[in-house]
């Protein structure tokens, strides 16, 4: 699993540019599901057929990134954000483009850190001048954070854990689940970071009876950190609420029951902001009972997102435990 996590988090895939992630996941799932297809938006949908009701799991493939908006005559790139960044944390970070060009983010020298915004930041790709820069990247090209993913015992650090770690959980579950009373759709969604967009259209197409998002959640266990209940290493986090969804009580309780019956370590999560694909899924058509399995993750939306492998394994077990039970019983 460590190897898969390393490979999948290091693949290029800002919102709208997820095709390399699609290729990697397709290769992993080959032979483990009945059909796979990419829809109009670019979502990868892996279908494991079963006799019962439809359950849709969704983990998003896209990562936050940047888009080039202007090339200065000296060859520096100006950019804007794709998804939510804190501009004052960006100075000194490395980025990579789809074609492998790498660069470094820096800022106007007289800027105080708390005044940093996109107008005062630039990317240096080492180009001599505008002409050379234009031969390397074009206006409109996107880039993402560039970091190796590292393991330190059970803890792994890297960018794009949000939400490739969710993709890993679905891949592992799909590889292990040989049969289920339910009709399972594993959706690897696009454009979550810019507004839960891929989940919206894929849920419309699939029209599941139950929706489950897998995504990271911030923790409250860092020095003077946020007043949050979730701790890294305390198991899978079952979401009660965030800004996009209030987990359907049936789905939340289903998750708790499965965790308790299978001795899966879990914690309950209430998040005051943020959203996941469940926010889009549960409002599809006449409404779909939905919830979220969260993976505790420190430093979300930074280049060094940290997860605990035991939590990740607990999430895989929870997914497996859920699909083993006929969801028709839960929903009645």
């Amino acid at each position, binding site marked *: 699993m460590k190897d898969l996590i390393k490979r999948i988090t290091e693949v290029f895939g800002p919102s709208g540019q997820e095709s390399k992630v699609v290729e990697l996941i397709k290769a992993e799932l080959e032979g483990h599901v009945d059909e796979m297809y990419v829809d109009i938006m670019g979502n990868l949908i892996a279908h494991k057929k079963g006799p019962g009701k439809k359950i849709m799991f969704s983990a998003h493939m896209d990562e936050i990134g940047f888009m080039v908006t202007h090339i200065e005559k000296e060859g520096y790139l100006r950019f804007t954000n794709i998804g939510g960044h804190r501009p004052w944390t960006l100075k000194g970070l490395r980025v990579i483009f789809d074609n492998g060009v790498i660069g470094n983010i820096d800022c106007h020298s007289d800027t105080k850190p708390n005044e940093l915004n996109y107008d005062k930041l630039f990317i240096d790709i080492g180009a001599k001048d505008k002409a050379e820069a234009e031969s390397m990247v074009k206006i409109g090209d996107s880039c993402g954070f560039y970091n190796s993913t590292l393991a330190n015992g059970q803890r792994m650090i890297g960018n794009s854990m949000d939400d490739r770690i969710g993709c890993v959980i679905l891949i592992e579950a799909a590889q292990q689940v040989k049969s289920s009373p339910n009709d399972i759709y594993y959706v690897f969604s696009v454009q979550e970071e810019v507004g839960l967009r891929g989940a919206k259209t894929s849920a419309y197409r699939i029209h599941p009876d139950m929706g489950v998002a897998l995504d990271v959640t911030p923790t409250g266990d860092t020095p003077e950190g946020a*007043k949050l*209940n979730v701790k890294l290493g305390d198991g899978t986090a079952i979401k009660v*609420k965030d800004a996009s969804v209030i987990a359907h009580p049936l789905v939340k309780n289903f998750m708790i029951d499965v965790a308790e019956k299978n001795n899966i370590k879990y914690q*309950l999560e209430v998040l005051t902001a943020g959203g996941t694909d469940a926010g889009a899924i549960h409002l599809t*058509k006449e409404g*779909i009972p939905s919830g979220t399995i969260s993976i505790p993750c420190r430093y979300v939306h930074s280049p060094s997102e940290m997860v605990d492998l035991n939590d990740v394994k607990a999430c895989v077990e929870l997914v497996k435990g859920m699909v083993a039970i006929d969801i028709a019983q839960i929903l009645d």
Partner: protein
Amino acid sequence: MKLEKFLAQLTEAPGVSGYEGQMGDLVGQAFSPYVDEVRKDNLQNLIALKKGSGKNCPSIMLAAHMDEIGLMVLKIEEKGFLRVTSVGGVDERTLLSQEVTVHGKKPIIGIIGAKPPHLQQPDERTKSIKMHDLYVDCGFSEEKIKELVRVGDLITINREFTQLHKSKAAAKAMDDRAGVALILETLKELQYLKHSIDVYGVATVQEEVGTRGAFTSTYGIMPDIGIAIDVGHGHMPGILNKEDTMEMGEGSGIGLGPHVHPKIRKKLTELADELKIAYQIEPSPSPRGTDAYAMQITRSGVPTALISIPLRYMHTSVETLDLEDIKSAARLLANFIARIDHEFVEGLKCF
């Protein structure tokens, strides 16, 4: 059931956004004598149908949300204090020293506390207390409370329905249980009127967190006309000028703005004039803030209107209104429904 009794029952019961199950049961019981069918949908919207006399008749959906704003346990701290977050738009300044119920394994009483004023610096006392500095004290030890309460449990303020002078009343969650009561009153009025169209009375869920229930219930019903019923700001001393408020007791508001179909509004105001039913015009350039926002843009679009019951102190536990405004608006809606036919509905797509 009498209006006062129904409203007392609804406002005293808990039903925070996302957890409207019990509220839906209460509403369903009250609606059922007056309708042909009652059901709940996937997100727990309570949907009642009173069939019309016509064949292949058009339908109207009356929507009022049954959820209320509230608090949720965010974290259980040492010594058993509960840190909280809000569900929906809660004004932190209205929370201090409220008595609450924590809906844990069983309901338990709690008190919302904060650092005592004696121990605050003089400059602290003039500042409002933030949500993250408030806590709920239930008087239990950490060990004991963890047996009874979990992260994610809901908290509501304890408040009895109170009749004030004449027809005025105060309670928590009048926003928008008063709207649900208005639907019930409309259904009662309809017993004595002949109507050819199907009438859906919907108590929606999760309005306070983004009109979520209205999106899904409207999708399922796909009515020809949608009327959202909610509360609007009543006039009171202080910052609100007359232009932004309505007078309590002078009839409900008929909304005016991008979220309101001009022909429905026109028919409502003409009918009110004809029947001498008091009403006020409530202009609003923003379509946001009520179920009409969602209903209007569902599928290929629904012609919508908005009825607002004037109410003071919105989003506090002492929301105050005039019951006569509910009764008069119910009479207006029932008569409106009785007069709708195919031709009127067809005309709504002709601009």
